[in-house]
Every structure is written in structure tokens, then in C-alpha cells.
């Protein structure tokens, strides 16, 4: 269904979205690119031209950079693993005939509605606090030494908090997918003598492949730019400084705009690499 009329209409109707996103992407990017070549430290009043690639060299050669990349990957991997595996498990569980299914579903999706600042604050203070947190109470109750979660296991704690927030999303998408699974397929497999594990491996999992891709894609998009959870809990200390957070510290906390901008550009490049890889993998799966 394509005539000249509809094709030009289509172009006209795409235009606002494409234009806005292009501006939204390019203008700040160009400014950042420009800043990244300057020695720009507003607090000291320096605004000197022509650092060249100096800021980039300085940013990449600091050990903080490589640490932050590792941290970012660990956070991403940890959360994806927990939410995808947990999401599949929960989706299968919620697909079973149980009493009060609707209520359980409401309970399970609730964390998705909680804003990241709130969940970080609540987890940090009311659960992970080494003195008054519930975990500390629980440890004491069974005779264990309370743990200061956010300084002893900081990254793990953040992964836990973020996973709690994103598990509902993964569960919902996977649950919809599981419910769309044709039960005749299962019956056929059962007739063919496939046990529960074989049925999971040969039917459920392949059927979920597209949904898992979607979950991974969307969560990666959001997780790469995770901010509030770190800001509120550790402030980037104890090896929880992701690349995003490192750039934030350089630009805002130490007011070194030149250096931070270089970091920002590097983050943009890396994000694009991740995006390209992801799109390559996902694009295929998203094909109609």
C-alpha cells in the first residue's frame, strides 16, 4: 500500500519526530564536543581554548575510567541476569493456576511504579543500614554480626536494588509471552514424550527468545544511564562509580567541564558501540 501520496504523507508525518530527536541528539553533542577540547573550569574562571585531545588522554589514562567501565558492565550483567532468570521463573509461576492470581500480580509489579530515588532511599536506610536497618535486625536476631551492606558489598547491594525495580518489568513482558504460548504445542510435545525440562528447553525458551531480547534491549537502555540509585546510596564510592557517574562527578562535582565533556563523548561512543552490538543482535530478532 504505497502510492506517491501516502509515501510523501508518511515522510511528512515522520518529520517532526525525526527532527526533534536529531536536534536533541546533535545540539548538546556538538557543544559537548566543543567543550571537550577546552580547558573549561567555571569555578576557577578558566575557559581556555585548544586543549586538543588532552582531556581525552587524561580521562582515558586515569585508572578511574577503566574501573568505571568494569563497574558499569558488572552492574549491567548482574541486573540483566537476575531480572531475566527471575522474570522467567516468576512468569512461569504466575502462569500456573493459583488462587488470587490477580492480587499476586499486583504485588509483583508494584516495584515498577516506585521512583528510583524512593527505592534507593528506602533500601539504603530502612533495610541496609547497619544499625537500624531491617537486615541488621534480622542478622542480630539469628546471632550474626550485622553487615554494612553499602560499604561492604556496595555493588552487590546496588545490583539488588536495581534488580528489584526492574524484575516486574521483565516478569510482565515474559508473562504475556508465556500466556501467548499455544498449549497445543505443549500437548504435542508431551505426546512425543518430552518431560517438563525438555518442554521448557525446546518450546518455552525458544518462544520467549523475542521477549527476552526486548527485555534485554530496554533494560540496557535504562541501565546504562542509571544515576539516582548510585547518587542516593553510595555517591559513587566503594567501587560503584559507573562511567555515567564518573562523568557526572567530573562535570558537576569537580566542575571540570572540559575533562568531563571528554568523558561524556567517550561515554557516548561506548554507548553507541553497545547499541550497535545490541541492535545487530536484536534487530534480527525484532524482524517481523
Amino acid at each position, binding site marked *: 500500500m504505497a502510492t506517491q501520496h501516502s509515501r510523501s504523507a508518511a515522510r511528512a508525518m*515522520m518529520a517532526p519526530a525525526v527532527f526533534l530527536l536529531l536536534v536533541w541528539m546533535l545540539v548538546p*553533542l556538538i557543544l559537548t564536543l566543543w567543550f571537550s577540547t577546552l580547558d573549561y573550569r567555571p569555578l576557577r574562571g578558566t575557559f581556555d581554548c585548544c586543549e586538543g585531545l588532552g582531556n581525552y588522554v587524561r580521562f582515558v589514562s586515569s585508572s578511574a575510567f577503566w574501573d568505571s567501565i568494569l563497574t558499569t558492565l558488572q552492574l549491567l550483567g548482574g541486573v540483566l541476569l537476575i531480572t531475566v532468570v527471575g522474570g522467567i521463573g516468576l512468569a512461569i509461576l504466575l502462569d500456573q493456576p493459583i488462587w488470587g*492470581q490477580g492480587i499476586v500480580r499486583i504485588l509483583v509489579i508494584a516495584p*515498577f511504579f516506585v521512583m528510583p530515588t524512593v527505592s534507593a532511599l528506602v533500601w539504603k536506610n530502612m533495610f541496609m543500614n547497619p544499625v537500624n536497618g531491617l537486615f541488621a535486625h534480622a542478622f542480630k536476631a539469628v546471632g550474626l554480626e550485622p553487615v554494612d551492606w553499602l560499604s561492604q558489598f556496595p555493588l552487590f547491594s546496588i545490583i539488588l536494588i536495581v534488580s528489584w525495580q526492574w524484575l516486574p518489568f521483565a516478569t510482565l513482558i515474559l508473562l504475556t509471552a508465556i500466556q501467548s504460548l499455544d498449549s497445543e504445542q505443549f500437548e504435542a510435545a508431551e505426546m512425543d514424550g518430552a518431560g517438563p525440562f525438555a518442554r521448557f528447553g525446546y518450546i518455552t525458551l525458544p518462544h520467549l527468545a523475542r521477549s527476552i531480547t526486548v527485555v534485554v534491549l530496554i533494560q540496557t*537502555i535504562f541501565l546504562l544511564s542509571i544515576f539516582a540509585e548510585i547518587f542516593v546510596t553510595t555517591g559513587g564510592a566503594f567501587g560503584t562509580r559507573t562511567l555515567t557517574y564518573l562523568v557526572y562527578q567530573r562535570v*558537576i562535582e569537580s566542575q571540570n567541564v572540559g575533562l568531563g565533556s571528554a568523558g561524556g563523548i567517550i561515554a557516548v561512543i561506548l*554507548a553507541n558501540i553497545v547499541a550497535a552490538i545490541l*541492535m545487530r543482535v536484536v534487530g534480527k530478532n525484532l524482524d517481523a
Partner: protein
Amino acid sequence: MARAVTTQRKIVFTALAWGIGLMIFFPILWTILTSFKTEATAIADPPVFFNFDWTLENYQVVQERSDYMRYLWNSVALALGSTFLGILIAVPAAWSMAFVPTRRTKNVLLWMLSTKMLPAVGVLYPIRLILIQLGLLDSKIALIFILMLINLPIIIWMLYTYFREIPGEILEAARMDGATLKDEILYVLTPMAIPGIASTVLLNIILAWNEAFWTLTLTTVNAAPLTAFIASYSSPEGLFYAKLSAASTMAIAPILIMGWFSQKQLVRGLTFGAVK
């Protein structure tokens, strides 16, 4: 599977599901409970669950300290404004992608999604500068625009996957029936896609409501939404659990209630085309 399920099996699964469900929900429940306690009960060891003297005092204190209604109104305005604007721009774009696909369509979509992967911190400084220049720092209009832009790729994607399931023949029939493009979208496509649009709107409201980077860095007073309201309780002097809980409850209650009431609509469209 249409087959009698043994009661025993059902009991086991019910217990398991409820156990896990309550565990996942517990942090929220605990926050709500704590918001009705006194500060002393809030940190009592062993913890108290239900048998304490319920008090509304924390809510009063929080309301006195910060003007909740203003933050709430800002959150509502930002979430609804950015969603409305986003839908307005996304529906035509998604129509184009779904019904007049070209060789580039998929790449355009992926490019749009990739703009969401750009780390916001990288461009925070220039955006701030631009807004200051325009005198739009701490303005709702600017934030509505920015929230719309950051969620636009997701909205377009969701609508696109939804529109694609609508047979093109129906739109062609409308065209044969003399409908203009506007009529076609307004009277035929949109009503047919209501479930998908509803789901998209809901997801977008949730995302906009909870967005906590731009709303924190680009507002001070006038445009500050609930994310900023709660952030003011993260400083050490705000660390009274009961008050923190009350503030948290106030920040999440509206969206939590909306989410629960609309979860059927939300879930129905939340497939991103992954379910055939």
C-alpha cells in the same frame, strides 16, 4: 492445558507465588507501615509490624516542611504534559513506519532507540547552559519537552509494534471510502489502537513520573516534581525513618494507585511486538 489440576499442586503453587509476591512487595509495605509509626517505633528492634499506635503525625510534619501539593501538581503536569505531547508526535510517526515501511524504517527505529542510550550526563552541562540562555531553567515547559524527548523513542516503538498488527486493508478501505489522512488516523486507526495507545500512555506516565535525572538537575523550586521532593529527604538531617517513609509514601502513592487500577491496560500492550 485444559486438564484437571490437582488441588495439591495448586496449593503448592499458590503458596509459592504468594510467598514470592509478598517478598517483592514487602519493601513497599514496610515503608507504608513505617510512615504511620513514631520515630521510635520505626527503628524498634525487634521490628513491629501492625500492633503499634498508628499516627498521622509524620504526614503533618512532612506537609509543613515542604509543600506537597505543589510538587504533586508539578509531577502531574510533567507526566501528563510530556505524554500528551509525545503521543501527538509519535502517532503519525508510528503510522508512517507501520503502514508505509521503507528499507530504512527499521534503521530509523533503531537509531531512535539508540538516542536513548546516550548518557544524559554527557550532555547535561550544555543543556543546562542552553536553558539558562533561554531563561527556561526550572520551567515546566522545558522539562515537559525534555521528558517527552527522552521517552519518544519508546512511545514510537510501542505504537509501531501495535499498529503493525492492524491490517493495512482496513486503512485502505477507509481511503477508498473517501477518508483523508486525518480522518483515517482519527476515526479508524486511533479507535482501533486504543488498547495499545492506552498501554503506551500509561507506561509513559510511569516513566515520566519516575524520571530522576533531568528533573533533579534542571529544577530548583518552581518546576520541581516529586522526585525533587523526595530527594530533599536524602540529606542526613532528614533521616528520620518515619518521616522518610511518609514522604516516600506520598511520592509513590499516586502512581502506584494509578498503576494498580490500570494494570490490565498497561500489561495488554506491553509486548513490544514480541508476542505474535
